[in-house]
């Protein structure tokens, strides 16, 4: 073990791979000292594992319940630890399967919105002038749309469903990343190492892709992680309004909506998915804060 | 009587591999004179200056067997007494004026602040602020008084900051590379101002610098620091008689207009110097 550690922390790495791994290991060591961030990471990892192994973890069928025997059982009932809902379905199983939907929303939004934001922001920042003006005005226009309302309009036009909800959220999610990437690019653009690269005859594309994007990446990743909680809440909000995932899909927001009707007598039906949303949002926020501490290039070494 | 006494000053910073001592047992006394602390980056010279003012950055720890300013023990000073002392009797000039002047407050107001917080009437404070701007060779003190820091050039900004640090007429000024960011011609003007304050008001000056040549022509005494220790203490006029190989090496490796030495002698660091 010590030898691997020494190899990773070596001041004189002997290969590209060792240098990269060593760098990642140092970041990891930094990250590990932050207990809260580590808790956030654990929550997110647990969410991922839950989504992957849902069929093995869930004790019951998430979609079909026994209306005669297991309707609205309270939490801590034998075999139904988080209780059942009005259709007699096990809430724990539904939450476990619901994590797949939540994770899919989060992952797809991140995959769609982050590259768009990075591309628009770095291009605008690097070229400046009219390119900057045009791109940033478009960004401003999109930024002016209220997220939920645009998603509502979009879903209303294309029909309800989780896919449309994801597209709608992605469309409204990228402008903040573009702004951030542009601001970072403006500070990097005139630095000496970019000038040196220009002096080697590098094309603009190469400079943006190999030199500017890697530097903007960390702050954008941090921002995306911190936004995840908001994205989950928006998706849940759409689900709650009946415009996201459609029944009987076990989406957490839709589950809260289902439990709303009998909140007073059977509180757990709405409270359990609420807790799940709360814990996962918190996990992403803690993780984001931790990432900011270790990745932020402006942080004092 | 000496103004400042420092005995066995040590500063440590915790790191992943254990505590690192950046200043390791520095001793000196300062009278009403110009004392230079010279060294290369990482020698601990700036940390020494900050520790005297109780400004060791977190999570650093400064300890000393003796750290007294004009009879006051600085080691056990309360936060309140520190503020009183720093505003009025000791001051510090930093390298870059941009980081030390408040960008959203006119220069004059910043100059008056240390005076008015300690009970000087406003009109009196303004008079003294204007006087001080004149003393640092501002051509139009009234204009500078009303100006914001960004409206001043680098040299003017630096002089404005010196004025701010001196307006309360401190007994001790610690200047950390006060002129390194300035052009040579302006640098000398700023030094003349400091020089006059030492001569006229009997101020004690600690001048922290990397520039041996400048220091030898400006200061009375020189402490040469290397790896957290004072390796040599000399009268500035005797710098060419330096005994320690590090001091000699530092002096030799500077290019001179009148000399033709190719290649330049370089400094071979001896591990024993740090011991």
């Amino acid at each position, binding site marked *: 073990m010590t030898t691997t550690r020494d190899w990773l922390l070596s001041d004189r790495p002997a290969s590209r791979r060792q240098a990269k791994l060593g760098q990642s290991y140092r970041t990891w060591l930094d990250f590990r000292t932050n207990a809260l961030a580590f808790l956030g990471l654990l929550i997110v990892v647990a969410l991922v594992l839950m989504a992957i192994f849902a069929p093995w973890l869930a004790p019951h069928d998430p979609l079909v319940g026994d209306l005669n025997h297991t309707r609205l059982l309270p939490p801590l009932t034998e075999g139904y630890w988080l209780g059942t809902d009005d259709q007699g379905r096990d809430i724990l199983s539904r939450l476990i399967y619901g994590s797949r939907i939540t994770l899919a929303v989060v992952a797809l939004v991140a995959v769609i919105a982050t590259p768009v934001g990075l591309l628009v922001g770095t291009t605008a920042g690097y070229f400046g002038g009219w390119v900057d003006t045009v791109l940033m005005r478009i960004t401003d226009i999109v930024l002016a749309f209220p997220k939920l309302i645009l998603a509502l309009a979009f879903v209303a036009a294309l029909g309800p469903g989780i896919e449309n909800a994801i597209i709608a959220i992605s469309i409204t999610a990228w402008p903040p990343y573009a702004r951030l990437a542009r601001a970072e690019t403006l500070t990097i653009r005139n630095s000496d190492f970019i*000038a*040196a690269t220009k002096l080697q005859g590098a094309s603009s594309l190469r400079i943006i892709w190999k030199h500017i994007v890697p530097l903007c990446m960390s702050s954008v990743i941090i921002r995306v992680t911190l936004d995840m909680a908001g994205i989950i809440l928006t998706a849940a909000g759409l689900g709650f309004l009946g415009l996201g995932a459609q029944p009987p899909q076990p989406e957490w927001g839709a589950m809260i909506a289902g439990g709303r009707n009998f909140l007073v007598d059977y509180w757990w039906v709405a409270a359990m998915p609420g807790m799940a949303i709360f814990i996962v949002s918190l996990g992403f926020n803690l993780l984001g804060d931790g990432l900011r501490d270790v990745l932020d290039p402006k942080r004092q070494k | 009587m000496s103004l400042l006494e420092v005995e066995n000053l040590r500063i440590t910073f915790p790191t992943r591999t254990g505590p690192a001592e950046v200043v390791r047992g520095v001793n000196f006394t300062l009278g009403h004179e110009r004392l230079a602390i010279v060294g290369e980056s990482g020698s601990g010279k700036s940390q020494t200056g900050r520790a005297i003012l109780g400004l060791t950055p977190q999570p650093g720890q400064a300890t000393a067997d003796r750290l007294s300013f004009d009879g006051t023990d600085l080691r056990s000073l309360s936060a309140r007494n520190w503020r009183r002392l720093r505003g009025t009797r000791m001051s510090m000039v930093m390298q870059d004026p941009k980081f030390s002047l408040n960008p959203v407050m006119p220069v004059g107001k910043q100059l008056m602040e240390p005076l008015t917080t300690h009970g000087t009437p406003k009109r009196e404070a303004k008079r003294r602020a204007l006087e001080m701007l004149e003393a640092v060779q501002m051509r139009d003190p009234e204009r500078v008084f009303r100006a914001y820091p960004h409206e001043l050039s680098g040299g003017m900004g630096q002089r404005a900051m010196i004025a701010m640090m001196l307006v309360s007429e401190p007994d001790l000024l610690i200047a950390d590379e006060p002129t390194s960011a300035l052009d*040579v011609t302006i640098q000398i003007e700023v030094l003349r101002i400091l020089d006059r304050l030492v001569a006229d008001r009997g101020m004690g000056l600690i001048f922290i610098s990397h520039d041996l040549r400048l220091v030898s022509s400006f200061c009375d005494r020189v402490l040469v620091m290397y790896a957290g220790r004072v390796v040599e203490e000399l009268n500035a006029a005797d710098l060419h008689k330096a005994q320690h190989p590090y001091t000699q090496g530092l002096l030799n490796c*500077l*290019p*001179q*207009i009148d000399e033709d030495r190719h290649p*330049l002698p370089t400094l071979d660091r001896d591990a024993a110097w740090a011991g």
Partner: protein
Amino acid sequence: MLKIENLEVSFDNGETVVNAVRGVSFDVKQGESYGIVGESGSGKSTVLRAICGMAPTTGGRILLDGKPLPDPRTPDFYRRVQMVFQDPYASLHPRHTIDSVLSEPLSIQRFDRRDQRIAQALDDVGLGQGFRFRYPHQLSGGQRQRVAVARALILEPQIILLDEPTSALDASIQAEVLNLLERLRSERGLTYVMVSHDLAVISHMCERLLVMEQGLAVEELTRADLRARRARTDYTTKLLKASAGYTATE
């Protein structure tokens, strides 16, 4: 080899126009080391950037081997002219290893034998192979500046523009880097144009120098002129006097 004729550079930031360089001419011979001295705002660094096509030239001509330089500069220009920047902490990409810093120009300019060239360049600047896969933050200021020199040399240029290459370094490190630059010049017959605020550094490194003040060329001197204090203008005299150290009176 490099000829600057009546160069003018002005920056237009919308409201005001700043004339950073106002008609500067000089001529650098092959194998020569030419210095430009001035204080901040003299436009000395802007001249170097204008040569590289990184500053808006509003007048005059820049000739390389008698031919005006095309705008924008061609890849061929970058193979012949390279630059070393002032601040070694700002001139290396913080997330790139030394290896990728040095292989970048080779892959842009499609050089062969990249591995050997990188190894050779590291040896040439006295760093050695142990540094190849380190990140800039694992290096000291002097080591970083050696990497910057290696990066400039790896394309085998004929002219190197040096923008205050040692002013951010400690005195002992400055001596090492200056020695390195001198050795490389004599080994490879390089031509230097060096900008500095330090007259002593320029007189050590350069045979001829130009004094600049507020965008104007004040006067051109040889090293011998400088040593004999044969300055024709008050400004140069003042600079010479100031660089000798502190004096209590004018």
